[in-house]
């Protein structure tokens, strides 16, 4: 007997959406208090979110469907827009809230002029809110608008630094985002033309393996892969991520990219899973492997700390891409993607924010001149190292858990497939190992100067939040390895097309 009634959950879902829209709106209307609105609102939103997770886990065993579906305006699909809250969505909302809260506390010290704050905070809340709305949306057209809201706020935040690289990066990022969104929208239009509905779950029930679904899948997933910076569509990522203000870099690498993979996974689970073929698996596997190697090599020779971290995102996205061929062969393996997104999101946000702290203290982030600052700032180096260890996938960290699950799924997938696919799967397993090795190399490159003998100089002043927030995120990433079971429990209640 569950204590939570469906009405409470419906209210909670609506309230999550309203808060995700209301906080940024308030901050935009009154930017003079936007920082306060954010720093008060985000913790409250997290509390509400945790309550919603509790309610959901309480009620889920008794629900006949694994998701709370709210027809906004009182109109059910297909006429209205539906919010879709299930275990997968809740997990992503949690990741978003955690990275955003850490980023907010970090930004409190990072952005210190009053004029800068008035521009930063509304856009920052829009990024958080837009991603929330994206995760909650269950409607193909509505997803297009939320994608645009999230991208536009992200682009504006990247440009906020105001230097040439940042604005150039923002412009590239904007164009690639617009292209990706339009491609997604065209796919949605084709689906609507064939089936006359836009609701993802209804589409999943109607979709077949016909030409429309194939073309729509190519357009929608292609657009999202572009936004997720999957090789070879990754060129824009390093500039945009590396030149943004540090909390924004953390959010972009930690959450925005993950949200695109979330959406790919969601569309895959609901609509496009029947399209999975060995050929597609091989293609995705090759793209993932290429991203892994290329991104790592770039990270090994990049001249600046934040660029190393940004290229590491390209490499780590290669891992997530590698998970897709495995889940084509072994569909039950999909939670691996979420584990990766979680482990990478927390760890990479930690690394980028720590890099931002180093940059602020030293006044630059050129790799060959960071030694004195790194030697003097133990906390930040510890955050860099701990986040890095999770990215490498050393045992007990979240990264380890994710890679372990990926390898396990790979072996399971290999068990029941043809010989040729077994060879491919073996190659992917080797790639996972190689990727960890390369990650170790570039992480060591980041932290090694701290352990060499030499001058120590803490550099300029940084706020407490800028020291502690990367550390908190890194500890969170490491602790993921222990808390993995509860995430699995949440993900069990996710809508998957039959």
């Amino acid at each position, binding site marked *: 007997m569950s204590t939570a009634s469906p009405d409470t959950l419906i209210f909670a879902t609506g309230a999550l959406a309203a808060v995700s829209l209301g906080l940024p709106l308030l901050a935009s209307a009154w930017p003079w208090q936007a920082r306060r609105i954010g720093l008060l609102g985000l913790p409250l939103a997290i509390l509400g979110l945790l309550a919603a997770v509790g309610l959901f886990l309480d009620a889920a065993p008794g629900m006949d469907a694994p998701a709370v579906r709210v027809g906004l305006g009182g109109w059910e699909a297909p006429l209205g827009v539906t919010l879709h809250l299930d275990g997968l969505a809740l997990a992503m909302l949690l990741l978003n809230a955690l990275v955003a809260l850490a980023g907010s506390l970090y930004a409190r010290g990072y952005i210190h002029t009053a004029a800068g704050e008035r521009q930063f905070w509304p856009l920052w809340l829009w990024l958080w809110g837009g991603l929330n709305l994206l995760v909650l949306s269950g409607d193909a057209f509505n997803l297009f608008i939320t994608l645009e809201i999230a991208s*536009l706020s992200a682009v504006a935040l990247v440009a906020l630094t105001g230097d040439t690289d940042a604005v*150039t990066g923002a412009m590239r990022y904007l164009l690639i985002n617009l292209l990706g969104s339009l491609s997604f929208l065209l796919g949605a*239009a084709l689906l*609507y033309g064939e089936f006359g509905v*836009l609701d993802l779950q209804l589409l999943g029930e109607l979709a077949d393996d016909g030409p429309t679904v194939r073309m729509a899948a190519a357009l929608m997933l292609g657009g999202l892969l572009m936004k997720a910076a999957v090789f070879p569509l990754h060129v824009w990522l390093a500039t945009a991520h590396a030149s943004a203000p540090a909390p924004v870099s953390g959010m972009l690498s930690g959450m925005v990219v993950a949200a695109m993979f979330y959406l790919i996974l969601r569309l895959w689970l609901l609509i496009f899973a029947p399209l999975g073929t060995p050929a597609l698996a091989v293609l995705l596997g090759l793209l993932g492997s290429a991203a892994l190697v290329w991104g790592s090599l770039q990270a090994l020779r990049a001249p600046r700390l934040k*660029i190393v971290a940004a290229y590491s995102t390209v490499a780590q996205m290669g891992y997530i891409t590698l998970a897709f061929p495995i889940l084509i062969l072994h569909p039950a393996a999909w939670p691996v993607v979420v584990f990766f997104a979680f482990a990478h999101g927390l760890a990479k946000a930690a690394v980028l924010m720590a890099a931002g702290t180093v940059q602020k203290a030293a006044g630059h982030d050129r790799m060959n*001149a960071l030694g004195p600052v790194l030697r003097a700032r133990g906390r930040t180096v510890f955050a860099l190292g701990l986040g890095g260890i999770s990215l490498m996938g050393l045992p007990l960290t979240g990264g380890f858990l994710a890679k372990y699950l990926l390898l396990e799924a790979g072996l399971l997938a290999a068990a029941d497939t043809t010989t040729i696919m077994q060879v491919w799967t073996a190659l992917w397993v080797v790639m996972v190992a190689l990727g960890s090795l390369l990650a170790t190399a570039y992480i060591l490159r980041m932290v090694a100067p701290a352990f060499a003998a030499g001058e120590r100089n803490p550099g300029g002043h940084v706020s407490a939040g800028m020291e502690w927030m990367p550390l908190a995120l890194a500890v969170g990433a490491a602790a993921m390895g222990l808390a993995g079971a509860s995430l699995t429990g949440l993900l069990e209640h996710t809508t998957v097309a039959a």
Partner: protein
Amino acid sequence: MIESLDPGTLYPFGGAALFALGLHGLIRRRHLILRILAVNIMGSGVFMVFLGIAARGNAPPDPVAQALTLTGIVVAVSATAFALALTVHLARLTGYAVLLPGPLQTHRDSHPDDR
């Protein structure tokens, strides 16, 4: 046979062509104004597909697809307006309104301070 072609069937083909044409421009041209125009032409192609779908057959046009198009147009105009503002900002910083391919300053190895 050609007499049976209603606009709802014909125009989506034009929309597909516009989408591809816009994509071609987006890839080939370097000047940002032209790239923004290219994105807009791609968007018009998508809207044409949507409206064609809405008008297919003999029934009254589908208001949902038309409403979606209207929303899409507003979203596209907003994105365009912001993109134009960003272009001016970039031109003010660099003196150019083009995206130069190749490494940016932060990617270069050397820095005057290092020497």
